[in-house]
C-alpha cells in the first residue's frame, strides 16, 4: 500500500539543478524510445523499462496475467535459461525488481556502471526470446498465490480496496485487482502467456530510461547493438471501454474480524494530464499530506476518530478513482468515521481552502521533486512516468506553470464537481455489520 506519488513535481525550471535539456533521448529503428541522463555522483547506473501494459489490458478469465507475466520475465529466455537472468545479473553486481499497475509494467535493473553491457545482453535476450518453461509456470503460480494471500492476510485495507474498486467500476477493466482473482491465477495457461508476450512485449511498446554514471554515446552504441535488431510488433488494440457515469451511491460491506472498522470511499475522476488533474492532485495533498493536512489534523489529531486516514489519486491512462480511506479509532463506528470524512469534504466544497494551504502544497511538491532528483532511481522513474502518463517527459519540467495556474477557487470547484453522493462508492470492513 505504499505509493510513490511521482506527480509531485513543481517549479523545476526555476529552482532545480536538473534541466529538461540534461535528459537526452533517441529512438531506435524498431520504435523503442530511450532516455539517458548522465550523472556520475556514484559509480552506479540503472535501466528502467516501461511497458505500456497493465491489468487494464486484461479481460475476465485472465485477470492478473500482466502481473504474472512480469514474474515470468525473469524465468528464462534463449541465451539465459531459467534462473540465469538473476544469477548473471547478481554475479555482475546488479540487482533488479519490477512492478505492475493497472496501466503499466516496469522492470528495473540497478548495477555498477562497469557492468552495463551485461545488462543490455540480459534484457535483449528476454525481450526478444522469452521462453515459458511449464515447470517455472507452475512454481511461479504458487509464488503469486502466496503474494496474493499474504497481502490479504496482513492488510485488511487491501481486501477492502479490491472489493471497493470492483464495486465502483462496472464496465472498465480497472474493476479487478492487479494481482487478479484467485481462480484466474489458478487457471491461466502457457498459451495465454504467449499471446500476451506477442501482443504487448514489443520494443515499440516500451520506453527505456537509463540514468547514472554512463555516457550517451556508449548507451547509444549498446542500444543499437542489442535492442535495434528486435523486430517491432503490431500496435496493441487500444482499451476502448468507457465507464458509464455512476447513477447513484453504491455501498458494500465485508465481514472480517478486526479490532475496529475500516472504511474506503471512492469517487470517479478524470485521468492523469486531464484538465482537472492538477487541481485534483493539489486537493489530494491538502487532504492528506502531513500532520497538518485536513484529514489527519481533524480526524486523527483533533477528533481522535481515526488511527489512520488518507486519500489517494493514482496516475491513470483512463478515468480513474479518487480514494479516501481510514481505520477507526477504538470505540468509533464506521458511520461516525464516514460522517467525519464527508464533513471535511463538505467544508472544502462550501468554504474552499485558504491561500496559505495552497502555498503549502506547492512547497510540498517542490520538496518532493528535490527528493526525487537526489537519486538516479528517482530520476529514471519520474522521467518514464511523465513520458507515459503525461505524453512527454518534459511535462515534469513545465509542471510548475500548470500547478501555478491552479487557484483556490479551482480546488473548491473540482471538489464540488466530483465529490457528489451520486458519484460515490462506500466500502466498510468490520467484524459485524451495524445497521
Amino acid at each position, binding site marked *: 500500500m505504499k*505509493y510513490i506519488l511521482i506527480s509531485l513535481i513543481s517549479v523545476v525550471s526555476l529552482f532545480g539543478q536538473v534541466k529538461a535539456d540534461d535528459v537526452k533521448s533517441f529512438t531506435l529503428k524498431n520504435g523503442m524510445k530511450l532516455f539517458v541522463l548522465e550523472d556520475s*555522483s*556514484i*559509480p552506479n547506473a540503472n535501466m528502467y523499462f516501461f511497458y505500456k501494459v497493465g491489468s487494464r489490458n486484461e479481460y475476465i478469465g485472465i485477470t492478473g496475467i500482466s502481473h504474472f507475466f*512480469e*514474474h515470468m520475465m*525473469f524465468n528464462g529466455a534463449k541465451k*539465459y535459461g531459467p534462473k*540465469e537472468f*538473476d*544469477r*548473471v545479473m*547478481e*554475479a*555482475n*553486481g*546488479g*540487482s533488479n*525488481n*519490477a*512492478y*505492475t*499497475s493497472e496501466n503499466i509494467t516496469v522492470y528495473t535493473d540497478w*548495477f*555498477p556502471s562497469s*557492468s552495463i553491457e551485461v545488462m543490455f545482453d540480459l534484457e535483449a535476450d528476454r525481450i526478444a526470446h522469452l521462453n515459458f518453461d511449464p515447470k517455472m509456470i*507452475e512454481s*511461479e503460480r504458487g509464488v503469486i*498465490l*502466496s*503474494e496474493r*494471500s*499474504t497481502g*490479504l*492476510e*496482513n*492488510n485488511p485495507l*487491501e481486501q477492502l480496496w479490491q472489493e471497493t*474498486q470492483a464495486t465502483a467500476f462496472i464496465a472498465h477493466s480497472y474493476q479487478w485487482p*492487479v494481482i487478479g482473482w484467485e481462480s484466474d491465477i489458478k487457471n491461466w495457461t502457457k498459451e495465454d502467456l504467449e499471446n500476451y508476450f506477442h501482443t504487448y512485449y514489443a520494443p515499440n511498446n516500451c520506453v527505456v530510461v537509463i540514468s547514472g554514471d554512463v555516457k550517451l554515446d556508449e548507451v547509444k552504441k549498446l542500444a543499437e547493438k542489442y535492442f535495434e535488431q528486435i523486430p517491432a510488433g503490431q500496435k496493441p488494440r487500444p482499451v476502448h471501454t468507457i465507464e458509464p457515469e455512476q447513477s447513484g451511491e453504491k455501498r458494500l460491506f465485508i465481514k472480517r*474480524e478486526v*479490532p475496529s472498522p475500516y472504511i474506503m470511499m471512492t469517487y470517479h475522476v478524470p485521468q492523469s494530464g486531464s484538465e482537472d488533474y492538477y487541481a485534483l492532485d493539489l486537493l489530494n495533498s491538502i487532504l492528506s*499530506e*502531513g*500532520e*497538518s493536512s485536513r484529514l489527519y*489534523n481533524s480526524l486523527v489529531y483533533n477528533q481522535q476518530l481515526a*488511527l489512520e486516514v488518507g486519500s489517494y489519486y493514482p496516475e491513470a491512462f483512463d478515468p480513474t478513482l479518487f480514494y479516501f480511506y481510514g481505520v477507526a*479509532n*477504538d470505540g468509533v463506528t464506521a458511520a461516525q468515521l464516514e460522517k467525519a470524512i464527508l464533513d471535511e469534504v463538505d467544508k472544502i466544497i462550501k468554504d474552499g481552502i485558504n491561500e496559505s494551504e495552497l502555498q*503549502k502544497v506547492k*512547497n*510540498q*511538491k*517542490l*520538496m518532493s521533486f*528535490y527528493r526525487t532528483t*537526489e*537519486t*538516479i532511481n528517482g530520476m529514471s522513474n519520474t522521467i518514464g512516468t511523465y513520458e507515459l502518463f503525461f505524453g512527454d517527459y518534459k511535462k515534469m519540467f513545465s509542471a510548475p506553470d500548470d500547478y501555478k495556474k491552479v487557484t483556490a477557487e479551482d480546488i473548491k470547484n473540482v471538489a464540488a464537481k466530483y465529490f457528489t453522493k451520486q458519484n460515490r462508492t462506500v466500502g466498510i470492513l468490520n467484524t459485524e455489520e451495524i445497521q
Partner: protein
Amino acid sequence: MKKDGRCLMVDGKWRNQFLLNLFAILIILSSFSFAQFKLPKYEVVTLDNGLAVYLMEKKDVPIISFSAVFDAGAIKDGAQNGLASFAAEALKFGTKNYNKTQIDSIFNFYGSSLNTYARLDYSGLYTQFMKDDLEKLLPVIKDVITNPTFPEDEIVKRKQRWIAELDQAKESPRQVIGVYYNKFLFADSPYGNPVDGIKKTIEQIDGKTITSFYLENLRAENSAIAVVGDFDSNKMKSELTKLFSDWQVTVPRLIYDSRFIKQDLKESSVYLINKDNATETTFMIGGFGVPMSNQDQIQIDVINTILGGRFTSWLNDELRVNAGYTYGARSRFASYKTAGSFYISTFTSTKNTEPAIDLAIKTYNRLFEKGIDEVTLKSAKNYVKGQFPPGYETSGSLAGFLTQKYIYGLEDSYINDFENAVDGMTVEGANEIIKKYFPKDNLQFVLIGKADDIREIAKKYGKVIEKNISEDGF
C-alpha cells in the same frame, strides 16, 4: 493498485540464492574492481556541553538533511516498555515556544515534516528541508530537542491512540513477528523489550515519567547531530554552536548496565502464537547473532547474502523459486550495541507449514554440510560491492551513517575499505565465518498462525510455548 513484483524488499535489500553447478560455468568468474566509493569529506566538532556535531557539504540538490541521535533507546525502558519510543514522539507535543499544531504546521508549510523515533539502542530525530528554509526551521528543531514541555493533554490523547494501534498492529503478523522473536530470544534482558511497548505499560506513562526519562537520557553529552546538504560548513557550525550551546541538564545522569550477557541456548523451543483467523503461517527461525562491534561484520554479510540476502540466495531459491511455497524467504543478522540475533524469515499457507519449515532448515544446514564454493563466493562479493554505493547516495543516508557512526563507534573505514574487506575474503575464511557465527544447534522458532492446525507440527521442532496473539504484550 500497484503490485510490487518479484520479491520482498526488506531493509532495502533483496533476499536470496542458490547455485547449481550446472549453471556455474555461465557466471562470469572475474572479481570486479568497481570504481571505489569513498565517504565524502566531513567535519566533526564537539561543543563545550559535549554535543557532537558532524557537518558534510553536499550541493547537488538544494536541500539539507538533519539527523540527531540520543543515547536513549528502548534498552533503557526498564519495566516501562515503550517509554523511549513514546518520549521520542512526545518531543513534538509542544515546547517552550511552540505548541504541537504550530510545530506540524511550520514544517509542513515549508514542504517538510519532522520525524522522531526510537530503536533498541538509541532514539532520534530526522528531517529534510530546502536550504532556503534553514533559518525558519532550525530554531524549531532546537526547541524540540532542548525545550520540550510534554503537555499532559497531548500525552493523554496520544496514549489512547497508541494503545489502539498496538491492537491494530497484530492484524499483520509480518509487522509484529520480530517483536515476538526478540522477546523469545532475549527474554527479560533489555534487548527483549518491545520498542513500542505493551498496552499495560503505555497506560502507565504520564508527563512525569516522560520528563524523568528525558532529563536522564536525552542530554548533550550523549547525543550527536549530523547535518548533510547544501550549506556552508563554517556558517552552519557557528549557527549550531549558538543554538545548542545552552543545552545543559543538571539532573544527574543515570548510568545503565544494559549489556547483554549471552547464555547458551540449551534446547530448541517454539513460540507458537495463535491467530484464529490466520490462513498463513508466518515464521522465524534462528538464534544469537553478533554485536555491532564485531570485526567480521562485512564477511558475515557476504555469507548471509548467499544464504538469504538476495533474490538468488539459497533460501529464496528453494522456498520461492523451486517450491513455490512463498513470495519470499530471507535471512538476516540484526546487530545491536552489545547483542545480536540471526534469523531466517518467511511465510506460507497453513497447509504448507511443515514442508516449508523443513525446507528452510534443510537449506540452512547446507551452510554447515557443504559450505561455500569459489563461484558462489565471487558472485556474492560482486553483488555486495555493486549494491553498496546507492546506500550512501542521498544526504539523508549520509546523515544516517554519521549518526550511526556516533552511536556504534563505526570507523570511516567501514565505507572506505569496504571493497578491500570484501575482496580479501577467501573460501576457507568464509567457511570459518560460518562455523564461528551462524548458530547451528538449538534453534529457536516463532510461528504465528492458526494454532489448532499447526500445533502438532510445532512439536516436531522443540518444546512448544503457546500464546494467543490477542493477549497484551509479546
